[in-house]
């Protein structure tokens, strides 16, 4: 993880001020250009610290200290499972991984959200409709179930920015996209030796 962060830091140096200067204007433009629709309310256009920092166009400067401080804050804020058990039911996890619904203006807010893992990641070898925005996670369970591995995987799902600031991946735990139980189910889908993710490709 250190290697990745260092890469970003080298590529992006100096100050954040050059590109945040116009942000007052952009927020006014967005307020005038969008309207609230069902659960997609206007406050969603307001950015938190991570979103603000990670809105830098490619090649724009980012401050090294800001990166380090923010990453540490995110790491400290990760909530590990209350009862210390990381692994749920891989079958329910498969459903979460395959579903892309939830939190869109046209989604029913009473139904559970999906994780939409397959939009970006390869997982089970028999599912051909996978995206490539993220790395392949096929055979992820081979990494084992040590405490360190469990905690690392949980943290990645909870808040990717704790390791890899400005990763494209959503913060499934920190932003409340998935429940603790859903996260455990996805953990099992990734790590359980019986999960399709960990079966050999035909």
């Amino acid at each position, binding site marked *: 993880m250190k290697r990745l962060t260092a890469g970003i830091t080298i590529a992006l140096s100096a100050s954040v001020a050059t590109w945040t200067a116009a942000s007052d204007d952009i927020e006014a433009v967005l307020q005038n250009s969008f309207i609230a629709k069902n659960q997609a309310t206007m406050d969603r256009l307001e950015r938190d610290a991570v979103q603000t920092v990670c809105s830098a166009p490619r090649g724009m400067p980012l401050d090294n200290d800001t990166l380090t401080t923010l990453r540490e804050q995110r790491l400290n804020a990760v909530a590990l499972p209350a009862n210390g058990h990381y692994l749920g039911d891989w079958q329910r996890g498969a459903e979460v991984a395959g579903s*892309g619904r939830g939190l869109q203006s046209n989604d029913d807010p009473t139904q559970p959200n999906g994780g939409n893992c397959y*939009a970006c990641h390869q997982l089970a070898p028999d599912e*051909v*409709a996978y995206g490539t925005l993220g790395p392949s996670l096929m055979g992820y369970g081979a990494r084992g179930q040590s405490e360190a591995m469990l905690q690392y995987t949980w943290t990645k799902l909870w808040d990717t920015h704790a390791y890899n600031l400005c990763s494209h991946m959503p913060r499934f735990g920190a932003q409340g996209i998935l429940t603790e139980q859903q996260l455990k189910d996805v953990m099992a889908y990734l790590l359980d030796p019986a999960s399709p993710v960990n079966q050999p490709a035909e």
Partner: protein
Amino acid sequence: MTTTYSKGISRRGWLRWTVILSAAVALPGRVWAAVARPEAAFGATALDEALAALGDAPQVHEGIQFTTPDIAENGAVVPIRVGVDAEALPNVSKVSVLVEMNPNPLAASFDIPPSTEVYIETRVKVAQTCTLYAVVEADGQLYMQSRETKVTLGGCGG
């Protein structure tokens, strides 16, 4: 080529059908439906039921070339082709296309006169990954070919 007429639909029967069909242009809908639409098969909600409504159990026949995509980009539009080798399977008068898992498996049925080559292209909705069937009728017998088409989840999911 006159021998073609002596098999399958009789020439007289075909001519009569022509007259009815021509009349139908002036009086659309009612006449056609009453003449030839396989209503029971269209109403069937299970594959077996739809096949039974079309006739006796169909036999697989290699003379039928049934083309569907192995994997479809979208289930709303799945292009299909049905061709029949007239030497291997002559006198085909009807072609039907069925989609196993659709709410009503029979998607379309075509009556084909002897002068028309048995070759149909169309596009059908396929609700989920399943087997598609091309069923043809020749001399009162049913023959078929089947193909599986995988329907993928598109775009951002949802």
